């Protein structure tokens, strides 16, 4: 269906080709997953299928790419529009119109399909993707998962034979990602669509793949093979594969289900309970039943920390025996203390009655679906949003009333897109500005950058850094003021496994230094690696708050793969299992 013959792509001004010696055939009617570390040319390869590379991006393509028999050299992207549907990384950048129904019809209008056909296909696609309730909604009001589904729908309506997707689930919460993947699988199984998709979060997608196309390193030729074959050699692989490699399972399991079948042998080699992950024994996790409706409750788990001075009307009604302890009156102010925080925007309550305390040295993961209020809570802690009612104290100060120069000595927030924090042309200029902003001694920031991001020269333009490097640079900039509280919003979006491992190391070191860290994330594996405590938000309320192992193991959506494989034992990460198996003591997470 898609045929690459000795394809190399070199962009203008680049020294080395972005893609080299690609020679493979993607079979029809299968879901092919494109994997590889960042910067190996995955997006280039996808762009070459739709003809956007090189017609739109420029550069030089050698060799030949044919899609359904059409050569992309002689066919411009618009002439391939009826056979290839492309969805990029950011669905909102894909939208041309403003309403769901019009967006679905746009591609067909361009192709000149008769109105009756368009009408029928729009209705079919609305049903296929479960979008009927949203048909009249403006695109700007949709959530991330809904947008992704609309973007997929908008390229499906012309009935393309090939669908090309670049990281379709990386911005989505686990539930929404499942939704999108279910749709893709349905397309492959029921309609025979050929799907080629790149994704970093392999734990989400690898079990759906029929074939895997591996780009192992920059300049390496792509290798196509069955998922098990490729995963055995791939430098990027999901935790379940690491666990399988560690345990020496063969054939290598790719799904949790297969791994569970093999797990009894491993469990016999492991101690019955994992080594204690928390320095202090924590009480069992609080979990609200019927999430979304139950009122916010300070988690019983955090009872020692999460204080409940006056309990809410609802909690009294439910007679929850939450121990009401008085707040600890230690001399140093807590990094963050939130009491009965409610935040309204127009009529909508984004956050409702949140009570949360973060102590020094603690790492807290905020989880929950898109739009649950995670980013808003972080913004309130950083002082960029003012609470409607309730109290927020960060390092003893009220964030939104404290002038920014003082606030950055107490709290650091890295937003979803770290580029928002970068203004200067060079790393050195950014560092000098950060020193000046924070009133720190000149060189403070540069020293931080050097320790967190070794080997980046002063004159590098921040835009030329990779996603992971840019994130760490932004982190170093906001750490210059020496804040006790570090907030990160979706730090692993777009990061490959290597960059993620590096980030985990950095954050662990920060926590060991006594920094309190709060991460808002959809990445369950990251939460399992790092967090001491997980707080789950739903509809702006806290529905669960407790030690990571307790909260995530029982949850189908938020459990990491290792926990799913080895449940009901509380193992969370591969490194935990590895250290329990190997005789020499290794620093395990949390």
């Amino acid at each position, binding site marked *: 269906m898609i045929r690459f013959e000795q394809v190399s792509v070199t962009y203008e001004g680049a020294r080395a080709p972005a893609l080299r010696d690609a020679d493979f055939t993607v079979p029809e009617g299968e879901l092919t997953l494109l994997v590889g570390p960042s910067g190996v040319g995955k997006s280039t390869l996808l762009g070459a299928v*739709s003809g956007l590379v090189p017609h739109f991006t420029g550069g030089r393509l050698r060799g030949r790419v044919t899609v359904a028999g059409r050569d992309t050299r002689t066919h411009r992207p*618009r002439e391939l529009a009826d056979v290839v549907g492309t969805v990029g990384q950011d669905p909102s950048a894909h939208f041309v119109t403003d*309403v769901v129904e019009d967006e679905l019809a746009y591609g067909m209008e361009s192709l000149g399909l008769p109105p009756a056909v368009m009408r029928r296909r729009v209705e079919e696609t609305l049903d296929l993707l479960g979008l009927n309730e949203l048909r009249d909604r403006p695109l*700007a009001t949709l959530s991330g998962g809904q947008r992704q589904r609309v973007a997929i729908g908008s390229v499906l309506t012309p009935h393309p034979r090939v669908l090309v997707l670049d990281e379709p689930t990386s911005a989505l919460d686990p539930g929404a990602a499942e939704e999108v993947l279910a749709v893709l699988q349905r397309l492959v199984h029921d309609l025979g669509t050929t799907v080629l998709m790149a994704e970093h979060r392999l734990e989400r997608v690898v079990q759906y793949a029929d074939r895997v196309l591996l780009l192992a390193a920059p300049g390496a030729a792509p290798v196509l093979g069955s998922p098990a074959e490729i995963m055995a050699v791939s430098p990027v692989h999901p935790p379940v594969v690491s666990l399988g490699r560690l345990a020496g399972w063969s054939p290598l399991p790719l799904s949790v289900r297969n791994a569970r079948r093999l797990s009894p042998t491993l469990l016999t080699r492991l101690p019955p309970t994992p080594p204690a992950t928390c320095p202090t024994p924590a009480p069992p996790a609080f979990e609200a039943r019927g999430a979304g409706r139950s009122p916010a409750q300070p988690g019983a788990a955090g009872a020692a920390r999460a204080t409940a001075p006056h309990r809410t009307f609802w909690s009294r009604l439910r007679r929850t025996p939450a121990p009401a302890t008085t707040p600890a009156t230690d001399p140093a102010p807590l990094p963050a203390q939130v009491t009965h925080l409610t935040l309204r925007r127009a009529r909508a309550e984004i956050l409702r009655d949140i009570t949360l305390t973060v102590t020094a040295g603690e790492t807290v993961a905020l989880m929950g679906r898109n739009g649950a209020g995670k980013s808003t809570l972080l913004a309130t802690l950083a002082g960029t949003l003012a609470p409607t009612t309730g109290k927020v104290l960060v390092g003893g100060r009220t964030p939104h009333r404290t002038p920014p120069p003082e606030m950055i000595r107490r709290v650091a927030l890295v937003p979803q897109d770290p580029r928002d924090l970068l*203004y200067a042309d060079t790393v050195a200029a950014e560092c000098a500005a950060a020193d000046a902003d924070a009133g720190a001694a000149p060189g403070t920031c540069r020293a931080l950058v050097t320790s967190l991001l070794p080997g980046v020269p002063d004159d590098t333009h921040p835009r030329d850094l990779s996603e992971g490097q840019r994130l760490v640079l932004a982190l170093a900039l906001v750490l210059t003021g020496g804040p006790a509280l570090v907030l990160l919003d979706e730090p692993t979006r777009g990061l490959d496994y290597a960059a993620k491992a590096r980030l985990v190391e950095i954050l662990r070191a920060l926590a060991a230094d006594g920094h309190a860290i709060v991460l808002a994330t959809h990445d369950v594996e990251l939460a399992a690696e790092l967090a001491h405590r997980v707080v789950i938000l739903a509809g702006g309320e806290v529905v669960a708050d407790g030690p990571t192992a307790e909260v995530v193991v029982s949850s189908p959506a938020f459990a990491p793969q290792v926990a799913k494989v080895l449940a009901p034992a509380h193992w969370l990460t591969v490194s935990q299992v590895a250290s329990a198996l190997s005789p020499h003591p290794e620093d395990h997470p949390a």
Partner: protein
Amino acid sequence: MTPLARGPRTVTTHAAAPGHQAPAGGGPGGAGEGSRVPAYDKRGLRGAPEARRGNALHAGAWWVWALGLATGASRTTNPLLLGLIVAVAGYVVAVRRTAAPWARSYGAFLRLGLVVIGLRLVFSTLLGSPVPGAHTLVTLPEVALPAWAQGIRLGGRVSAEQLVFAFYDGAKLAALLVCVGAANALANPARLLKSLPAALYEAGVAVVVAMTFAPNMVADVARLRTARRLRGRPTGGVKAVLQIGLPVLEGALERSVAVAASMDARGYGRTAQVPAAVRRTTSALTLGGLLGMCAGTYGLLAAQGAVFGLPVLLLGLALALAGLRLGGRRSLRTRYRPDRWGGRAWLVAGSGAAVAALLAYAAVTDPEGLRPGVVPLVAPALPLWPAAAILIGLLPALVAPVPPKEASSL
């Protein structure tokens, strides 16, 4: 189809116009709300149906209606009639607008109208006026201007007549603006573009994309200002604007490149081959037609040109339409669910046209009533039948489909 579904006024004509369904007709647009009125409920059958995609009033009908009111307003300087026109437009907007962002433009145009009246008064006070007046209100110090500026006066006597004349004149312009504002508030601009001829489609897309960019850029500015705070910098001031400006423009550029790539990959710009002669004829027809339309419109709106205005306008329109039709041959595009021009659209557009025609007639037969004199200074009277004619403009408030509550604020 269902004549009962319409008000008694509409029973006589266009009963079988397509695109009109009874409220509970269960059209394909139905999202399945459970609260819909059943078909046999009499209350549901009277009044206009709830607006949905399928029965939405053609955006062009709103524009014809609003331009009709505007033409009517241009025929009179009677402040009572002008006020009535503004009130009629305001009432229709109030009962038929959606929660969409553009629907708030009526208020903005109203304020703009007040500014226009204010400016007109200020200029009249400062620059004087040829209107003779016996009632001197105040005498401003007069600035002596050099000989080459003869005929221009700065300061001097300000008479009540002159101010009243300026007010009437300003009110006329304000009423025109408010009518345009009403059309803006009622007609979905994206849908209006859908109704454009195929040849104009590409220009239309540029406008639509630009419209979605403005809110995105506003969001970018807000996000980057927040980010400045995270670096410990003040969010206001010239420096902040300069530092934010570049990333915002960069973001807008990146987004436009992404949209362009997406449009290209989705088949935008696929065209059919047409002979060169056809292309040239198209250009000539379109250009000539547009020129004719401009001249004709000017004639209609100017006080003396009504005689030649209409024929020239119609000729220009015909030429332009022919040009556009020919130009449409190049485009392969089809349209998904364009707004249909049904009975209700005829009624809405007709009511505006009626107001225009009746006021134009009144301006000829009753010039004193429509243009109250200022010398001598008299209170304007309300001419009865032109006022009644303006009230025809209220028809859309009865026949246009009612927008659902919270239509786009979900």
